[in-house]
């Protein structure tokens, strides 16, 4: 259903006269339901890989399969549909639409998907409870703390029932307390809903939660280790 296979992905960027290698023959396989961390310094290619897996960007060469589908061949419109129905994103910051309340943000993707109001409200209510945000769902992002905002973001990512949740440095703007809570939430959701999580980060504390840790450098995968079920590292 939601396995990811990447084969020989290459991506280069051009900045003026310079050529920057984003991905250099990257291949990997992630099974459905895994909880993976991509780590590496900035410029290692983890964001590029994440964008490719999420259908936000197309690699220059190579294949990406989501389930059995070749997503590197999809046109822009089809990619948008892909993102809409099968991918959930959590970014480092500015995850939410400022003029919508927390609940409206959560319902946003479902609205684009075309779900009926009743269903939307029901699912939103459920997820709000699950991530522990009942009572503040009518606040706008500006009135929420950083941690709360990220929780809303992941609630939105999960509620549209994607195959895959991709998070790019989700804890970078949070204090350690909030970061811990967020990572625990990710883990709980992963176990509860069986959705694959791929998280890009350079924070050691976050990496400790990973059941599988893939390190990258200069556009290549340098190591790929599996561990036991993550636990909170102090």
């Amino acid at each position: 259903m939601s396995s990811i296979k990447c084969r020989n992905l290459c991506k280069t960027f051009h900045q003026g006269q310079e050529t920057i290698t984003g991905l250099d023959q990257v291949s990997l396989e992630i099974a459905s339901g895994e909880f993976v961390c991509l780590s590496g310094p900035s410029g290692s290619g983890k964001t590029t890989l994440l964008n490719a897996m999420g259908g936000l960007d197309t690699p220059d060469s190579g294949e990406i399969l989501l389930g059995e589908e070749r997503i590197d061949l999809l046109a822009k419109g089809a990619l948008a549909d892909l993102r809409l129905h099968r991918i959930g994103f959590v970014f480092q910051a500015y995850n939410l639409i400022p003029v919508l309340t927390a609940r409206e943000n959560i319902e946003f993707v479902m609205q684009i998907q075309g779900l009926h109001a009743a269903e939307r409200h029901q699912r939103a209510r459920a997820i709000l409870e699950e991530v522990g945000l009942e009572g503040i769902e009518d606040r706008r992002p500006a009135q929420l703390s950083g941690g709360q905002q990220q929780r809303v973001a992941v609630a939105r990512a999960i509620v549209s029932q994607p195959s895959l949740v991709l998070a790019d440095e989700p804890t970078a703007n949070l204090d350690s307390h909030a970061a811990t809570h967020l990572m625990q939430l990710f883990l709980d959701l992963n176990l509860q809903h069986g959705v694959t999580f791929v998280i890009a980060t350079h924070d050691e504390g976050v990496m400790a939660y990973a059941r599988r840790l893939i390190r990258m450098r200069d556009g290549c995968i340098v190591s790929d280790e599996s561990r036991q079920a993550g636990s909170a590292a102090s």
Partner: protein
Amino acid sequence: MLPLAAIIKLAWRNLWRNYRRTLIMLSAIVVGVWAMIFMNAVMRGMVDDMIRSAIRVLPGHAQIHHPLYRDDPSIVNSMTGLSPELENALAQPGIVGWSARLRVPAVIASERESRGLVLLGIDPATEAALGFVPGPIVEGRSLEGVDDRGLVLGAKLVERLETGLGKRVVVMSQDPQNNVVERGFRVVGIFEAELQAQEEQSAYVGRATLQSMLGVGQSLSELAVLGTDYRDLSPWFAGLQAAVGSDVELLSWTELDPYMASMLRVQDGMILIFVGVIFAVLSFGLVNTIAMAVFERMREFGLMQALGMRPITILYQVLMESFLLLALGLVIGNLLAVLTIRPLESGIDLSGVADGLEMFGMGTTLYPSLRIVDMVATSALVIVLGLLASLLPAWRASRFDPIEALGKT
């Protein structure tokens, strides 16, 4: 695709994110829209007034004469009567009424002075019913029938002749045999007209009286016809035209007064230009405002696309924001216009420039004419033009690469 309600909600809330900017732009739109409608109403009122005045002076929406009468307005070129076809045609539903008159050049002499003028033998009932009277009677009475033997003069003429109510004057004119005929008349009524020229150059007597004075039986100089709407003669004009033989000539007011006809055309053009100009100045601000709003939200647009929203929905969002801004401005602007124009509809007093206005054929009071059609047309134009102007920033916003957009802080 986002449902419409969601797009509206997003657009509305986004408008008020920067309430200062929105309020300033809104105020500008309100002022612009108000000015458009105000100017429109004033101009329409002005031209309406001018044309109604002209029609009252001609008089009529159409006139029927002897074919040679216009070139040579002498008693010789008169119509001897109405054919049955013409009488039928004059009874058409679109025609409000008609009035037959005898109209000859004459000389009027009091004890002291003489003046040349146009003498009109009328049927006071039909003339009054159609509103062809030049103005109210300020002294004495109006004519009472076609056989009335009295004379009604304009106040200015009475002054020039140094005569007065109840006094006798002598009226001289030419009969069809070229003889000068004269008759004494008593001044029974004095009228005032909005246009001074009318006061000085016309005098009224009973039609039968004039006919007998000139010995012309039932001859008529002209038939003035009034329809329901000066803007549209088509319901009845063709019917009249068919009934008019080759022995009489039928002309519409636009042919009789080409200047006024052109006024009507020019006015529509001028309003359009005025609206266009105002809108052009507004559009600079509008595009600026929309572009600023869009630019500030690039990251958000990137986020939405990352979440799976199609780029065209961004276009719709931006256009909707522009639409709501314009619509709000239009509502307030229209409301303001109605509130300010309504009290003025009883007339704006322009007596300070009365003589000048007379040169243009206008009365001294200006009645702005606020028509729903104008308001709707102006509003529709503003919305359409406004959306067109916002199209470019909206389109550019939708073309932005989501990854680049996400990268902007």
